[in-house]
């Protein structure tokens, strides 16, 4: 027999309790990891290679307010601007989707947009077809796969923001961007359907270099200062973070739930360990009488508690990692979560929490053992 074997034997003496305790840690850490992944997916903007160069120009009052189309030549003339396209969120409901369509539709200038969406890979003939037909669109591969769409198919949408319904003919399927879900169509088609209002949702601008980007945003903002349509230009990153800030309450909510999960977990493990050690007080006194020192008994308790918690983390966090790797989350969540990835940082967090739980739950039993003399311990349960 070895000391490790002795510890394992003690931990497994009440198999049902051990199983339930490990399960409670595992389920709690699984939930915690899931919450963290969801939080990350909701609040962490997806970045691609081109995002460092892109600048979003929106109405200073609100994103919902359109911008005049006549701003285009002014922005185009600003030094450092390499490309520009209108970028209007259509927000239509795709046929068959009753309440929510999980992919966005953007009206752009197809020729100009190509300079901005350099990550998107579209076969040249498809691109040509898209540019040639103003009622056509290109569709992200994820959406095409999900709805089994092919070139030439039609996509009807019911307008939810704009008072017009649109139908696109699929001219191409793109991939290679950080989020291959969107549909891109002609701004002209939207304009015509709305009676040419002379507005766009936002402008997407490409800076000539990363170093120039902050200067360009400043120049654009200045160019429209004190006009009837003042703008707010910001880098794509800043724009995305602005969106993220709208999730603030969700972040607090998920953070709060995570805290509650960890606290409940602490109570469970402390209670389990206290119970397990209280039941063995006399045995621990016998071990002391046989010559085991206090520090050795502490090590037994700590190893047992630590083992229980880390085993729970192994099954909980490891299980989450394995499960989300094998599941098709975009399909399961109707495209709400594109990447549902358990990162190494999340695994580290789960194991750190487990380790701290193991340590904390061992403290009370260790104090109990330290305070109890051999004679007192031997009298326990007598």
């Amino acid at each position, binding site marked *: 027999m070895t000391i490790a074997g002795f510890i394992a034997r*003690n931990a497994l003496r009440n198999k049902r309790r051990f199983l339930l305790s490990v399960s409670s840690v595992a389920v709690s850490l699984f939930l915690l990891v899931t919450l963290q992944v969801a939080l990350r997916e909701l609040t962490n903007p997806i970045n691609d290679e081109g995002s460092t160069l892109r600048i979003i120009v929106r109405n200073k009052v609100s994103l919902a307010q359109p911008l005049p189309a006549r701003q285009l030549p002014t922005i185009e003339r600003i030094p450092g601007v390499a490309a520009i396209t209108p970028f209007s969120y259509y927000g239509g409901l795709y046929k068959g989707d009753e309440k929510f369509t999980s992919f966005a539709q953007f009206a752009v200038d197809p020729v100009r947009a190509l300079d901005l969406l350099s990550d998107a890979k579209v076969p040249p003939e498809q691109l040509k077809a898209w540019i040639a037909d103003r009622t056509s669109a290109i569709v992200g591969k994820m959406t095409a796969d999900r709805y089994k769409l092919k070139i030439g198919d039609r996509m009807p949408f019911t307008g939810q923001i704009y008072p017009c319904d649109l139908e696109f003919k699929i001219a191409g399927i793109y991939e290679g961007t950080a989020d291959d879900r969107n549909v891109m169509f002609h701004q002209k088609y939207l304009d015509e359907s709305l009676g040419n209002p002379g507005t766009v949702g936002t402008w997407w601008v490409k800076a000539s270099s990363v170093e120039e980007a902050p200067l360009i945003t400043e120049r654009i903002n200045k160019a429209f200062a004190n006009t009837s349509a003042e703008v707010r230009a910001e880098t794509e990153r800043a724009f995305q973070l602005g969106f993220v800030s709208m999730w603030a309450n969700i972040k607090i909510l998920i953070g709060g739930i995570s805290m509650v999960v960890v606290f409940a977990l602490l109570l469970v493990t402390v209670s389990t360990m206290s119970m397990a050690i209280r039941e063995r007080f006399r045995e621990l006194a016998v071990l002391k009488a046989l010559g085991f020192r206090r520090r050795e008994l502490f090590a037994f308790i700590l190893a047992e508690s630590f083992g229980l918690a880390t085993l729970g983390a192994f099954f909980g966090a490891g299980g989450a990692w394995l499960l989300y790797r094998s599941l098709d989350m975009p399909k399961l969540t109707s495209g709400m979560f594109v990447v549902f990835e358990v990162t190494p940082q999340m695994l580290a967090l789960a194991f750190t929490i487990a380790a701290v739980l193991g340590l904390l739950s061992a403290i009370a039993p260790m104090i109990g053992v330290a305070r109890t003399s051999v004679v007192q311990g031997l009298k326990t349960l007598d």
Partner: protein
Amino acid sequence: MSPSNIVTIRELSKEYRQGEIDVVALNNISLDIAQGEFLTLMGPSGSGKSTLLHIIAGIDRPTKGICRVQDIDVTKLNESGLADWRNQNVGFVFQTFNLIPVLTAFENVELPLLLTRLSAKRRREQVKTALELVGLADRSKHLPRQLSGGQEQRVAIARALVTDPKLIVADEPTGNLDSSSAQEALSILQLLSKQIGKTVIMVTHDPKAAAFGSRSIHLEKGELTN
């Protein structure tokens, strides 16, 4: 102290507080116990016999006085030193056996040896010898719940002697046994004293059990009466 004495106790007292009352468990006890002696401590409940046994075994501390075992004043050792000393010098036999329920008889006997530097092979040999000595070599793989009370107590005796201590202390070892099992356990303790030269100190209420000892002393209200 006579060279043949293993235990020398001088003016030993133990007082403790129980609620509002000061209890005198031992009052100025002086006692010598010779090497190889089988001493029985008798007396009514609360007379202090278990307290005296616990002090000699190094699991309790006196309020004052000297308790020297093999030239070491155990009252002066710190907790860690006392734990080491107990492991090397004292074997315990309890009334309720106190075997670890998840360990087999063999593993229970091996437990004190885990604190030594003996190799696994040497440990196995010593455990085997101890179990043979108490007549339970064939029960080595049994868990305590698979043994009778008498067998459990014999495993406990094997555990007490596996480290080859000079001193074996037994606190009412027959209290939970039927007369036949008690007889067996007492015979083993007697054998350990008479033939192997171990010093055995046993607390008992039972005069029949005390008859197995080579000397018997009585305590009453914390004082020796003979």
